[in-house]
């Protein structure tokens, strides 16, 4: 499938007619962002969004309430993303983290393993407020990109696709404790990056 192909005229008309007042552009934007966070590739993200929208439009008779439409389309999208991720798992195995990786965040703590003064976590306020800001999402995406591939995949399965840890272990062949370490590491990277690139900047604005 041509990754950059927009919806065809008939698909587009159907979508607009169906979505009515709801902005298809905004929905597509949110879907693309969600897919790109996980697939880390614009073309692959365009593909799954296209497939999900086409599948949703084909079955649109089943949905009358616009309030549930976004949730429903996203559930289709999640399945497309899982399929796409699964294709990659066989070629890109997830290696257990070594003890060395654990020391990456040592600089945040002093010798007694308490927070260094300048690294004390700040109160970030209301997440809903940040989520309404498109600029926040641009920074969020940059921060997700900072994660190593395998770490980002495990994090995506847990936080974006809603897998339980036991399911992740089974899917990618790692132990629970290794999975917890990987997820912790992912959250540490994301937290530190948002602190520096979003909340730090916000305070200085």
């Amino acid at each position: 499938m041509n990754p950059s192909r927009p919806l065809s005229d008939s698909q587009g008309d159907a979508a607009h007619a169906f979505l009515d007042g709801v902005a298809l552009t905004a929905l597509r934007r949110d879907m693309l962002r969600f897919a790109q966070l996980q697939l880390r590739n614009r073309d692959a993200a365009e593909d799954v969004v296209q497939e999900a929208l086409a599948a949703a439009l084909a079955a649109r008779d089943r949905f009358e309430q616009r309030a549930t439409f976004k949730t429903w389309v996203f559930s289709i999208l999640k399945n497309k993303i899982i399929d796409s991720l699964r294709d990659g798992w066989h070629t890109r195995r997830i290696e257990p983290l070594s003890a060395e990786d654990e020391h990456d965040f040592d600089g945040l703590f002093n010798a007694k393993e308490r927070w260094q003064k300048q690294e004390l976590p700040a109160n970030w306020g209301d997440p809903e407020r940040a989520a309404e800001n498109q600029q926040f999402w641009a920074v969020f995406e940059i921060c997700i990109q900072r994660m190593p591939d395998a770490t980002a995949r495990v994090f995506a399965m847990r936080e974006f696709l809603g897998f339980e840890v036991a399911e992740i272990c089974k899917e990618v062949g790692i132990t629970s404790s290794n999975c917890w370490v990987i997820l912790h590491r992912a959250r540490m990277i994301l937290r530190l990056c948002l602190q520096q690139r979003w909340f730090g900047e916000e305070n200085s604005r």
Partner: protein
Amino acid sequence: MMSCKKATHLLSQQLDRPLDAAERVALRFHLMMCTGCTNFSKNMSFLRTVCARAGGKS
């Protein structure tokens, strides 16, 4: 008292598994004394909320 580093591990893990009673007590005690980890805990909830929002939940 539990170290901040250990507390961050538990604060992350409690998003992925139920903590046992001893862990919960030690963590609660630590959070009472530590503003940094209290904010870290809120940061973790923040991350979970925005990740859910990215996934189309409104």
